[in-house]
């Protein structure tokens, strides 16, 4: 955080240079983090959870909850070449993206290996915002080489953002005074006044990472705490609660969303040859638009499409109730033919199912699938081999996430 306490303490605190940055919402979040369960994200001090991971997860599914996305990386790309530069970088066709709309995109190396996924906000005809989980400035700069009429600004530390997810979110925002919020369609953007302002400093997009009804709120840092206070005041009667990394991970897994470091390894940070993934392996075929004459990795991806990906990301419903974290997958119950590995797994409290995302050798995708699960019981370790059933639809995809206006909770 560039504001308040840093400049004062650096003289006193010999460890200042080494401490994690504080989010713009930190003063409020710290109060609520009763467990002191902090980890870090992109150099920010970041909550794993605040009170209880499962409670926070149920707030997402049952009421409403906020997730701090200040540490998420945000870049403004503007200028006459901005569209062309981004359109060549990502695999989707941005010609289809209208103003005040958001789209989910991914981008690849020349070899068609996935670097990262993220969202692009079209803020004006020549103005875009790209958000993603990991720092990407170096790749953006590389991508911008040869495009003269372009400016890339790293907004990561200079734009506060809060994800607000759950069935009561629309109601809370209405109560907060965001008039017309119920008409905001998925992936659309609207602007609102807050704290008596008149220039609509609050940007709201109907986006999120939970597979549920939800919004993301974007605002200048100096208004961050105002936003927080107004939101929490309005949300008090609707069960508002901050949630951390742990609950996010549960919600996104139910929705079938991929995470770097779990489902995929960012290509530019992968040491071993092809230990990274292609969009096809991750079932992101729908993001790759071959009608577009050129985008980065196109020819490699075309080959991959024609050849068929080596692996496929699948959703598994696994017998029993022991989560299959880090399990190896086999084609037979004797575990003689290894065909893949589980990338994320959990017991889903809403679906009451033992679910997982997994990478499976494409050749075995139609056969039977067995998971070898390790689990502990009072310091003893056990393993068992159980059957897995392929699921096509997300484990959790309520209608309210898609409908406009969203139904009453």
């Amino acid at each position, binding site marked *: 955080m560039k504001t308040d306490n840093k400049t004062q303490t650096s003289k006193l605190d010999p460890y200042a240079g080494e401490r994690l940055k504080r989010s713009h919402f930190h003063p409020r979040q710290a109060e609520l983090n009763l467990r002191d369960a902090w980890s870090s994200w992109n150099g920010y001090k970041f909550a794993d959870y605040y009170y209880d991971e499962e409670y926070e997860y149920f707030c997402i599914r049952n009421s409403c909850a906020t997730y701090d996305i200040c540490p998420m990386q945000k870049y403004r790309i503007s200028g006459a070449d901005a569209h062309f530069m981004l359109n060549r970088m990502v695999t989707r066709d941005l010609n289809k993206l209208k103003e005040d709309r958001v789209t989910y995109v991914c981008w690849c190396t020349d070899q068609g290996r996935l670097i990262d996924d993220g969202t692009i906000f079209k803020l004006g005809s020549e103005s875009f915002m790209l958000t993603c989980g990991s720092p990407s400035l170096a790749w953006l700069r*590389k991508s911008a080489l040869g495009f003269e009429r372009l400016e890339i600004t790293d907004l990561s530390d200079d734009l506060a953002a809060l994800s607000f997810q759950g069935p009561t979110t629309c109601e809370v925002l209405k109560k907060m005074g965001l008039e017309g919020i119920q008409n905001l369609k998925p992936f659309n953007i609207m602007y609102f006044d807050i704290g008596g302002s008149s220039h609509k400093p609050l940007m709201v997009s109907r986006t999120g990472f939970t597979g549920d009804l939800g919004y993301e709120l974007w605002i200048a840092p100096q208004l961050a705490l105002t936003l927080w206070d107004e939101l929490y005041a309005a949300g008090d009667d609707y069960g508002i609660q901050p949630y951390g990394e742990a609950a996010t991970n549960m919600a996104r897994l139910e929705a079938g969303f991929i995470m770097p470091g779990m489902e995929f390894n960012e290509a530019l940070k992968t040491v071993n040859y092809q230990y990274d993934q292609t969009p096809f392996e991750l079932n992101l075929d729908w993001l790759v638009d071959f009608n*577009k004459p*050129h985008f980065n990795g196109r020819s490699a991806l075309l080959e991959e499409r024609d050849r068929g990906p080596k692996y496929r990301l699948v959703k598994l419903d696994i017998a029993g109730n022991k989560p299959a974290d880090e399990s190896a997958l086999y084609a037979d119950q004797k575990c003689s033919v290894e065909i893949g590995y589980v990338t994320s797994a959990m017991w889903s409290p809403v679906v009451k199912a033992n679910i997982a995302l997994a990478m499976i050798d494409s050749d075995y995708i139609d056969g039977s699938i067995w998971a070898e699960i390790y689990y502990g019981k009072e310091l003893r370790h056990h393993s068992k081999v159980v059957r897995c059933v392929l699921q096509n639809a997300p484990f959790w995809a309520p209608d309210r996430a898609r409908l406009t206006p969203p139904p009453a909770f």
Partner: protein
Amino acid sequence: MQHYDNIIIGAGHNGLVCAAYLAKKGQSVLVLEASDTLGGLAATREFYPGYKVGVAHSLSHFSAQIVSDLNLTAHGYIPGAPMPTIGLDLEGKHVVVTRDGLRGVSKKDLDSYIDYRQLLERFAGMLSPFWLKTMPRIGSKKFADLTTFAQLGLKLRLLGKRDMGEFMRVATLPARDLMDENFDSDLLKAVLSWDGLIGSKMAPRSPNATVLAMLYRMSGEHHGASSIPKDGIESLINALHLVLVNAGGQVRCNAPVTKINVKGDSTGLRATGVELADGEILHARRVISSADPKRTFLQLLGAEHLEIEFTNRINRLRCDGYVAKLHLALDGLAHFSGIDIPDGRMIVAPHMDSIEFAFDDAKYGGSPAQPVMEIVLPSINDSSMAPDGKHVLSAHVMYVPYSLKGGWTAEAKANLQDLTIDTIAQYSPNLRDRIVHAEFLTPEDIESSHHVTGGHWHHTELSMDQMLMMRPTYQAAQYATPIPGLFLCGAGSHPGGGLMGGPGHNAARHVLAAGKGL
């Protein structure tokens, strides 16, 4: 509207060679040249009334195979005799290097030279077939590519155990170590290392490039010795032009290409032709660029049509030229102390440290305090270069940075020109009295006059990481580019720069082979 089989960008010698081969195979070819003269860096032009010169002032390894394939001798090109290389000494104790021997050095150095020369010729002989081959992609499974690899392996083995081991050691040796291992004379060492260094941002102590550059230059029929064709370098360019026109090819001068046109649809991208500065649009099945890779990809084609890493690799090619040119119009012969007729290639570099220290100035963007250079008086071998009884002096001055700290102001240029003339005058006392006109071209000048990025002779540096299957960079090292229909044929492709013709020849062969499938 005319639709060509091939449009070739640039009428440098590689563009012309490529065009001539294609035209002879019955293809329609149009060569587009930005300037008003053919030949690119080898073009001969009048720099003062009656006095002519080119950026390149001699040949060292123009391919004999191309001469015979295109029958250039029947079109007016008559190769010249090898010129001696003379290391100038202030006291007149010059060192004279010819292929067979040396003058002006000790018996010990002479003996070493014979062995050294034979060893390098064995190495050069091993490599020579590969300069005119397409370097395969590593990992290619094509039969022809595997054959090339196998041949390379076999040739290496055929050197014998000792030579092979020595080759693998010597190949990356800095010039200084190679010279120190073999010779005592400082002047001799400097002169012999010259051919491994000239044109590059490399000095005698820099490893990894010198020896390969030397061996590359030794691939010609005079084994690396410079020569001037009987009727000048112009006669080579004219012969290439004649062969091309006779085979039905066309050439247009004053036709600068500003853009390579690309069509894009759901089948991907394809080069369709070019656009000229006046807005004229020309169509062709293939566009073959002899312009340097940076210009071709980043300026003419545009990054938006290319992959991101590829674009960045092109951008990071080391293309800054480090050679300036001094041209003097002389109203009579300049005499060099201790030399009867200065008809050789004369090198001013008293010892390897003088080369090294000149480089040190340039690496920080400075102008050399004591320039080192190569001097030729082309009018001695080719009387058409100057009016009767008058002469032209041409010097390649190393290491003159492309981007000078503070910029190339008129003053900075004038100072360096003066310094260079003073340096030559130390060896040629009557020089200053003979000067009618002087011209000094920095790499920046060469860039703007010859449309070559960085003013770099070789379009991009001839060093190990930019050679062979990595020239100019992988995915464009086999003349085809990532854009279907766009090919490279200039010095930025394998085997590289210099008046050699290899890139043009190899590109034509590749295009013809690829064309069979079209």
